[in-house]
């Protein structure tokens, strides 16, 4: 049930089973700055988080950076052609090493060199060389040159971050001993790996800033009860009542049936439908069914009341055709429609009137999102 904020602020846990009870995640988890800080560890420091697309760094030495919460990492392809991730932090005195380098405009380096005192690392993170001033001690009267210890390449390597892939999607995990990515991904891994995702190239990235908590947008993405009223152009060609919502441990899929069969050339999967995959905590893969390509969303928190939607579009060629341009524009229109909804919801949540909302019977996907958030907070507190 809904709990209005009559000054008591009494809330319950997210209902364990949404068919019996309808408690949403309490409102303060969408509005409290402390929750935002806590999530950097409790959520983004514990689970597998999308880092980027392996196709953007095809050659050894190619790299991009990514910031998740407060952690800045370098994602690069090493000499063996493997993708690895490291903290962008020098083993000498902790300087950040490379400048911010977006996935859309990756860098290339034969080695990673810290600009501060020129410690230089191999592409596998091992310390490769240091300047003479770290091998001899002419300025230190208490130390003979021959007593200067040699720096071990591995012990003084960059700090690696766990990384793994589903097809070309690179994920990272900051926990010491994370559950395997395959476990968090469950069936999603098999579903995505059955598609030729790596045959498509990043063609467009659109980044928007939206004034709502990232979970508000995540929730909106996960249900289509709002579609009839708010996405009239889009639903015109869909059989909304025949959609299916499939829920797994850490991901859920919305299957939308098209009224009429769309051209077979126009999609990478073979069902006559659009598929929207949400992967906890903040990644989504969009198979539109009306374009030969796919899209991804990163729902990247800025603070408790804002996030960035990083929308990437993948097509056969990185150069967009006229139709694909139009397709991206339509997708963008859909986003704008959603932004209005989620910003309005955030305003309501922030007003302080509501302590806890309730979920509808077809919002079991949203329920999953809320439950996972609550579990993450509880595990972190424990």
């Amino acid at each position, binding site marked *: 049930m809904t709990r209005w904020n009559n000054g008591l602020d009494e809330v319950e846990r997210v209902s364990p089973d949404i068919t019996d009870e309808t408690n949403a995640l309490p409102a303060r988890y969408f509005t409290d700055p402390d929750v935002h800080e806590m999530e950097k560890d409790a959520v983004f420091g514990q689970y597998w988080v999308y880092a980027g697309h392996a196709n953007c760094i095809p050659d050894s030495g190619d790299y991009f950076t990514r910031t998740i919460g407060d952690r800045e990492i370098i994602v690069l392809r090493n000499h063996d052609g493997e993708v690895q991730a490291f903290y962008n932090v020098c083993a000498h005195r902790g300087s950040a090493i490379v400048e911010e380098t977006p996935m859309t405009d990756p860098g290339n380096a034969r080695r990673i060199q810290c600009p501060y005192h020129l410690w230089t690392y191999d592409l596998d993170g091992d310390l490769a060389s240091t300047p003479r001033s770290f091998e001899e001690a002419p300025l230190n009267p208490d130390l003979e040159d021959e007593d200067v210890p040699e720096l071990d390449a591995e012990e003084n390597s960059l700090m690696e971050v766990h990384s793994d892939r589903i097809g070309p999607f690179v994920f990272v995990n900051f926990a010491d001993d994370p559950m395997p990515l395959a476990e968090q991904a469950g069936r999603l891994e098999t579903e995505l790996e059955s598609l030729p995702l790596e045959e498509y190239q990043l063609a467009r990235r659109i980044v928007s800033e939206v004034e709502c908590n990232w979970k508000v947008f995540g929730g909106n993405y996960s249900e289509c009860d709002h579609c009839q009223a708010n996405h009239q152009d889009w639903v015109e060609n869909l059989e909304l009542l025949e959609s299916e919502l499939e829920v797994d441990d850490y991901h859920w899929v919305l299957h939308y049936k098209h009224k009429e069969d769309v051209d077979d050339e126009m999609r990478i999967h073979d069902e006559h439908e659009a598929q929207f995959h949400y992967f906890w905590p903040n990644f989504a893969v969009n198979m539109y069914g009306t374009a030969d390509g796919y899209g991804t969303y990163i729902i*990247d928190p800025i603070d408790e009341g804002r996030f960035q939607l990083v929308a990437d579009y993948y097509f056969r060629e990185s150069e967009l055709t006229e139709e694909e341009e139009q397709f991206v524009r339509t997708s963008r229109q859909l986003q704008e429609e959603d932004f209005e909804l989620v910003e309005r919801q955030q305003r309501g949540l922030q007003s302080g009137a509501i302590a806890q909302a309730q979920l509808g019977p077809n919002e079991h996907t949203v329920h999953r999102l809320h439950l996972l958030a609550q579990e993450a907070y509880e595990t972190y507190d424990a």
Partner: protein
Amino acid sequence: MSPQQQAPFAATCPDCEVTSDATEANEIVDFYRRHHRHTGHDVVVARADIAFDVPATDDVLAIVDALDARYEDGVPVGIVVAAASEQGVTVGETLDAIREVRLTGALAEPRDDHLTAV
């Protein structure tokens, strides 16, 4: 903010065609940094309602010099960015220019993202 009142500042990415509204000038700079981090795109100032006249120049030192007296603890970088944008300069270009001048010692940053002429 109700839809009727417009935020005094706004920045746009011409590549993404997205606009971000801002109450304070410095939020334009924050927007640029976040946007640039993800895309490498530069952004432009789309709106800047400043209550006073800004000098008609894109010379960042001259802008800070002219506005210094108005601020107790430094001119917000966003104001400098907005002033330079009147001359058609992008946010990224202005921030680069500021960095150059700071490295000569002619500009100082008394607090984060605020500038004074030295």
